[in-house]
């Protein structure tokens, strides 16, 4: 199999909640692919659909239309064995380090369970060794932490355990849903670096979901910008962030706190209505796609 072929892909996936007037289009014709050894950043505001995309990948619910492709085969009609393989291949790192670990269980338990479920070939001794190895990989000291409970660990340590748990089953894809937004600033870089290292060492395909666009530039090669369930602009991260084409992308980038730019004296009246217009128009369904660069695409906003 070609190393560049995607491990996981969404093909024209849509998801609607509710119906009629109150229908919410959480995902509208969403298509993207995850390749081994590459990070794809998914950025957008709350309600943009990025969480829905993550949930569809984790199979919390099924798409209303379109398909999920795993190793180029549609997952819809998969056998139980394929589903089990899928579960081991696609893991998630959650946003909230406090809620991601069970307060009633030790760290050892958290890391042993995935091994018990997906590596039945290991006996007790091998399993224990595997847990030690996992902790060392995420730069934690095994002896200190194995018997501890989650509440005895800091947020950063808990997030590292989450990553270790995800790595335990030798996945091919990791979905990181805002993995650093609830951590202290000085701790975030360490976690991002860890994700990067793991990605490179294991040739993982990483889907990095965030609202902090600056971190997307730091960790990702490719980026997608979502709004109202649609991917409005996507491509290589330097191209999209350097020469944004879609008005919404430009709006988003202009709003990112930049210490080099002090606030203007007053927001002009027409600026506020311009923002309104961009939001309204960007929410309209737009099937057309335009290529604007080597690896840079946009769904032009309807006028």
């Amino acid at each position, binding site marked *: 199999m070609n190393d560049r072929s995607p491990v996981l892909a969404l093909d024209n996936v849509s998801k609607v909640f509710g119906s009629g007037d109150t229908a919410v289009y959480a995902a509208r014709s969403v298509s993207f692919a995850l390749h081994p050894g590459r990070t794809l950043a998914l950025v957008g505001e709350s309600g943009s659909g990025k969480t829905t995309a993550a949930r569809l990948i*984790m*199979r*919390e619910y099924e798409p209303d239309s379109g398909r999920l492709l795993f190793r180029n085969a549609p997952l819809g009609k998969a056998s139980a064995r394929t589903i*089990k393989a899928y*579960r081991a291949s696609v*893991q*998630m790192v*959650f*946003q*909230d380090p406090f*809620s*991601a*670990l*069970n*307060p*009633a*269980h030790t760290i050892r338990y958290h890391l042993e*369970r*995935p091994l018990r*479920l*997906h590596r039945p070939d290991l006996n007790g001794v091998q399993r224990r060794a595997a847990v030690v190895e996992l902790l060392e990989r995420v730069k934690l000291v095994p002896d200190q932490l194995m018997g501890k409970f989650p509440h005895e660990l800091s947020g950063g340590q808990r997030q590292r355990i989450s990553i270790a*748990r995800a790595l335990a*089953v030798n996945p091919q894809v990791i979905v990181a849903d805002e993995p650093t937004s609830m951590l202290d600033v000085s701790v975030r870089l360490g976690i991002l670096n860890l994700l990067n290292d793991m990605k490179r060492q294991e040739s993982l395909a990483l889907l990095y979901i965030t609202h902090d666009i600056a971190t997307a530039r730091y960790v990702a090669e490719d980026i997608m910008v979502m709004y109202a369930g649609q991917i409005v602009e996507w491509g290589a991260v330097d191209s999209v962030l350097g020469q944004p084409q879609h008005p919404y992308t430009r709006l988003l980038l202009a709003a990112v706190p930049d210490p080099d730019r002090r606030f203007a004296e007053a927001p002009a009246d027409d600026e506020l209505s311009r923002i309104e217009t961009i939001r309204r128009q960007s929410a309209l369904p737009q099937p057309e796609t335009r290529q604007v660069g080597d690896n840079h695409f946009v769904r032009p906003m309807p006028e």
Partner: protein
Amino acid sequence: MKLLSQLLHNRKAVVGLVILTLIILVAIFAPWLTEYSPVKRVGRPHQAPSPEHWLGTTRLGHDVFSRLIHGARVSLAVGFGAGLLITVIGTVLGIIAGYKGGVIDEIINFFTNMVLVVPNLPLLLVLASFIGQASPLVIAIILGFTSWAWGVRVTRSETLSLRQRDFVKSAEMLGEPAWRIMALEIFPNLISIVGINFIGSVIFAVITEATLEFLGLGDPNTVSWGIMLYNAQNASALSVGAWWDLLSPCLALALLGLGLALINFAIDEIANPRLRTGGMLNRWTRMVRVGEGKL
């Protein structure tokens, strides 16, 4: 376990546990603690407390102390037995309803509502009188199967909120089977609620059993605190001045209730750290009074 060691550090818990342990030990060693049989006539009717009969005698000449400590066995057995039944049914149904949701939740809720709506004591009265002279075992069973509804509600709502936590999602994504998630991921986080439910159910069972027997629906040949109350009432103990006859079972029930309630408060405090004040508040008040600081 963590909870146990925390309990032992809590003053309320220690007092409650001491009371409870004392009552249990007295009940277990009852035959060795008294020379009198609880059902034989060993003295004159309504003798006041004396060195021979520490708590006096009943109208039929039975030794009150002997009846009291033998009766403890029945009250404890019914209390803990029914309490266990109530808690097990309530917890299991509550977790299943909360975790599974959907149709299963609807069905369990329907039955829970039915049981909740029926007033507890009148139902028990009707059942007990229908059966005639209900032995403690029968009473325990009736209590167990009619009083679980509140426990289901509480357990279900805790389960619902736990269900949303990421670690449950993580377990599901790993492919853990549902029964394992309910028993080993969710249940360990419910232990304080279940503990409080259990102790509360025990208190309820003890009191309700005594009530049923006091009202004359129990088996008069049993030796239990409820029957002691029933006998004392029939003998008009208070009017003839034989206060020991009535007060002994009353105080015994109150003591057991107190011990259990203290344990419950302690579990609640441990589970909810915001309720813990104790040492901190004293130090704080002292510092403010001395002028070391203010709010």
